[in-house]
């Protein structure tokens, strides 16, 4: 099997204390959506942060396009084409929507108007509110700003930590639609989701983590169909 586009391979480690991840593997192919689900405290966010370099791995490696990036800082990974949307505090509340997008493109020295135009096309509401302080927007709109900010570096991988936490079901559906659209442009998506059922529906690949280790790994459809997964993690 060919090497996936991005892979956190057999990762073991934690935040300095006891290990949280145990031999955990997460991967995503180009232009596909991979979703990490699992019960509370399963280490879903930790696994994603490990892929992004926000904690030190004791064992295992992270590779992007076959290149070992295990020792790179998160900032350096941004330069390599990875983008990360944290679960909370993911926008500059006191700055306007447009300024948020500009800050997302801080590392770029070329013309960013085209990318900004693409983000506005993806999230038309942001174009309307471009001169408003991002902190004044609704929860769903804030998430759009957060995703938009991350897209400004023209990443090859977009990582989302529970993008639908705290938004209404309608907004959640809308957000998932947008994420599918983003994936169609060739950007790989890796996301952690609390709403496992809806997330697996749009996922090409699903990872069910339990206690920091892989329990089930399959396509989204297959996991949805698996009776054991359904019983244990999707509420029947």
């Amino acid at each position, binding site marked *: 099997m060919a090497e996936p586009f991005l892979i956190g391979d057999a990762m073991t480690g934690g935040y300095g204390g006891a290990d949280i991840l145990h031999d955990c593997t997460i991967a995503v192919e180009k232009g596909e959506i991979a979703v990490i689900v699992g019960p509370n405290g399963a280490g879903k966010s930790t696994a994603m942060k490990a892929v992004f370099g926000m904690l030190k791995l004791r064992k295992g490696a992270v590779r992007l396009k076959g290149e070992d990036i295990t020792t790179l800082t998160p*900032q350096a990974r941004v330069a390599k084409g990875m983008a990360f949307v944290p679960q909370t505090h993911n*926008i*500059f*509340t*006191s700055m306007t929507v447009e*300024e948020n997008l500009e*800050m997302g493109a*801080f590392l770029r020295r070329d013309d960013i108007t085209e990318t900004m135009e693409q983000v506005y096309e993806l999230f038309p509401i942001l174009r309307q509110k471009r001169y408003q302080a991002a902190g004044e927007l609704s929860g769903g709109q804030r998430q759009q700003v957060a995703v938009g900010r991350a897209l400004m570096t023209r990443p090859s991988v977009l990582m989302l930590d529970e993008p639908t936490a705290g938004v209404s079901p309608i907004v959640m559906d809308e957000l998932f639609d947008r994420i599918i659209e983003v994936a169609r442009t060739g950007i790989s998506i890796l996301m952690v989701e609390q709403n496992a059922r809806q997330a697996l529906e749009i996922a090409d690949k699903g990872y069910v983590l339990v206690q920091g280790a892989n329990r089930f790994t399959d396509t989204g459809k297959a996991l949805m169909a698996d009776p054991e997964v359904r019983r244990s993690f999707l509420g029947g």
Partner: protein
Amino acid sequence: MDILNALVTFLNFVFVPALAYGAQLALGALGATLIYGILRFSNFAHGDTMAFGTMTVILFTWGLQALGISFGPLPTALLALPFGIAVTAMLLLATDRGVYRYYRRVKAAPVILVMVSLGVMFIMNGIVRFIIGVGDVNFTDGERFIITAGQFREMTGLQEGLAIRMTQAVTVVVAVIAVALLFWFLQKTRTGKSMRAFSDNEDLALLSGINPDRVVAVTWIIAAALATTAGTLYGLDKSFKAFTYFQLLLPIFAAAIVGGLGSPIGAIAGGFVIAFSEVMVTYAWKKVITYIVPESMAPEGLVQLMSTDYKFAVSFAILIIVLLFMPTGLFKGKSV
């Protein structure tokens, strides 16, 4: 009833002095609030940074005067200002390199940084006293007045005069220019925006690839510029004395907190709130009231709410009221 004379008296003794003082406080508070926003601690050395900056400006002013260079009717110190800012900026950058940077690395609690700034304050205070001494230094030159009370009376035929000193006018004009530059920088330039982003959300700024060392360095340079300008204007308007600058710490922080720590626009508003309250509470209103009310009701006393010796109490009282009733200040700074 003589509204016009009452108004002129008010302008002369309250409005104009408070406007100049407010501009000085606003510049001082801007520096303090920027450092708070970016470096996240209250810099107790800010007053002494102002003293240091003013001292370098005075030294350059003396140098220029010795060379026979003057600025016409304007104070020579304005010409010396850029040099003073440069030297002060170098001092602050060196301080950051030698002192503060370590505490950022180890992610020390803000209160430790405040204590460290106490140490820096001691040293800066010592340097200033060592170089220029503790006495009063008057370095104002050029024209003293734009308009004197006598000229004003002649022009208008009113009983009361309105004197505007050159230093007051210079203070307001320079402050307006400095604030305009600062806001243009923060709102329009890439570096300025990255500073705001860093102040708003440090982690996300790092994720966006903003270089924290650069942001911090630029902050110190701007703080040096603001502190030197504020201190020089204050020194021109009053006089330079090492110790008074330490005492300015209280009204400056009061202004920054009243406006909302971390909020530049708040610092400006806070500066004027503090300055006007201080002047109005300590001004003897007898003359103004005598012009307004009928003769029979003219007050006997001075109608002074508080003696000028208690001006600190005014900024302090405002500070406490704001902290108790709106802890984030007028313009929603970072708080609690």
